[in-house]
């Protein structure tokens, strides 16, 4: 039982990171029906920006987090403007291939500048090195930090999407782009804003993972990116709460498999889940079964 609870604690921490990445996938998919394969690389860049802030500028976790989020926001918008916006009326497959190209560009571009070697985050100081014992369950301060930051960011995102003008515009554009134009909504700006939000969350996830696992490398975005994508599909792609649930679910499953079974299978299980969803309920947990519009 205690081991189980310990795995839950670890799963929730990892799940927070997946959830943050999955949100960007799902929002971008919701608004332009693009699986943005470069999204995992934004997360990687967030980890590197955090690394540089903390190692060379000796900034604290929170300032580094904010800087990583800001720069990732900017990168997300630039990528959208340069790579995806010119393809607004292109076929979906053309945009998808472009996304893969952007992803490779970011991975190997980063490798060119920072080299391929693994780097480690500087050791944390003060309260962040503590861990707390509840019976035999250990909760580290880092885990608490990850979960708290994730919850704050999610609450902030919910507020933006539900309560603000631009959030309403996002929902309108994702439901019916033409109708949104007729309301006077600037669709291009709304799409850029969606990329901005998603990229900010991915940037945050990057630095949190750096803190949690300590080591980063230019290809670190690939696997978590794919897993977060599975999380988004699990929850119902395009649905924001679905991405949150999916992230926590995938994180927990992965930790459980590694803990009880064989950690060699932890990645395979995630993709087995993807195949299962696609067979059983392709629209995901919260998705409505819709007939494909012809």
């Amino acid at each position, binding site marked *: 039982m205690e081991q189980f609870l310990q795995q839950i604690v670890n799963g929730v921490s990892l799940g927070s990171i997946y959830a943050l990445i999955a949100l960007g996938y799902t929002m971008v998919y919701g608004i332009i029906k693009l699986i943005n394969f470069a999204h995992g690389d934004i997360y990687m860049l967030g980890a590197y920006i955090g690394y540089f802030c903390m190692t060379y500028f000796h900034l604290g976790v929170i300032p580094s987090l904010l800087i990583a989020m800001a720069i990732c926001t900017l990168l997300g918008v630039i990528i959208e403007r340069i790579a995806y916006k010119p393809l607004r009326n292109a076929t979906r497959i053309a945009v998808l291939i472009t996304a893969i190209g952007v992803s490779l560009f970011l991975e190997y571009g980063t490798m060119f500048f920072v080299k391929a070697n693994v780097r480690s985050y500087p050791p944390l100081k003060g309260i962040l090195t503590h861990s707390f014992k509840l019976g035999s369950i250990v909760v580290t301060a880092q885990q608490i930090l990850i979960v708290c930051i994730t919850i704050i960011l999610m609450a902030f995102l919910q507020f933006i999407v539900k309560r603000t003008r631009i959030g*309403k515009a996002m929902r309108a554009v994702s439901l019916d782009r033409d109708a949104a*134009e*007729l309301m*006077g909504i600037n669709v291009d700006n709304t799409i850029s804003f969606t990329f901005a939000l998603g990229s900010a969350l991915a940037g945050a996830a990057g630095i949190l993972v750096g803190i949690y696992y300590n080591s980063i490398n230019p290809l670190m975005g690939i696997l978590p990116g794919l897993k977060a994508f599975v999380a988004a599909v699990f929850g119902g792609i395009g649905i924001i709460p679905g991405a949150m649930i999916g992230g926590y679910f995938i994180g927990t499953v992965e930790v459980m498999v590694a803990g009880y079974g064989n950690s060699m299978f932890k990645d395979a299980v995630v993709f087995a889940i993807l195949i299962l969803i696609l067979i059983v309920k392709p629209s995901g947990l919260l998705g409505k079964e819709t007939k494909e519009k012809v």
Partner: protein
Amino acid sequence: MLEINNLNVHFGVIHALKGISLKVEEGEIVTLIGANGAGKTTTLRTISGLKKPTDGTIFFNGNDITSASPQDRVRMGISLAPEGRRIFSSLTVLENLELGAYLRRDKAEIKKDISMVYERFPILKDRRKQAAGTLSGGEQQMLAIGRALMSRPKLLCLDEPSMGLAPLLVQEIFDIIQDINRKGTTILLVEQNASMALQIANRAYVMETGTISLSGTGAELMQSEEIKKAYLGG
């Protein structure tokens, strides 16, 4: 108010509008009728900026809006209740109406206009918290019109507002259109239901495969043999 000159629109190789010209004067109800595929929807979509013309000009209140963005056109006072209603189905009725006022910042006035829409369509008030997709066809049409009114348009374009509605409801919608017009909004109405459209219209244009084949006052066209044969079932 609205003046279209020699408008040409293509979809790839399809020449959907072949140099049409038409005018709508302030205060009028003008109707655009014609068979399926004649280009009526394309005309309205081009007026509202969703479709870019390949040639020709569109003037609104003296301004050349041919290449203006849809947002600018809404701001200037052009509003479209599109074909098929296109309401935001998973948003509530109230949220749909609020989106209609997206470009406006006058919160108090927006509230007033929402109550005005509710007065005009009391059923929408009862349903205001409900997802718009759960409304009946007639209610959705009312919402589409109400939403289009929320930008306080000078020119309201309606694309087949009677489509798929029971006869009684069609009459109600036409009464409402006349009432909106009486309160000062100019109307450009696309309709399949030619006889009813001609009855309430000051003037009418008949479209045929991308061109305007006939125009005149509503009364004139109702008497025209061609129209009777083609659109009025006799």
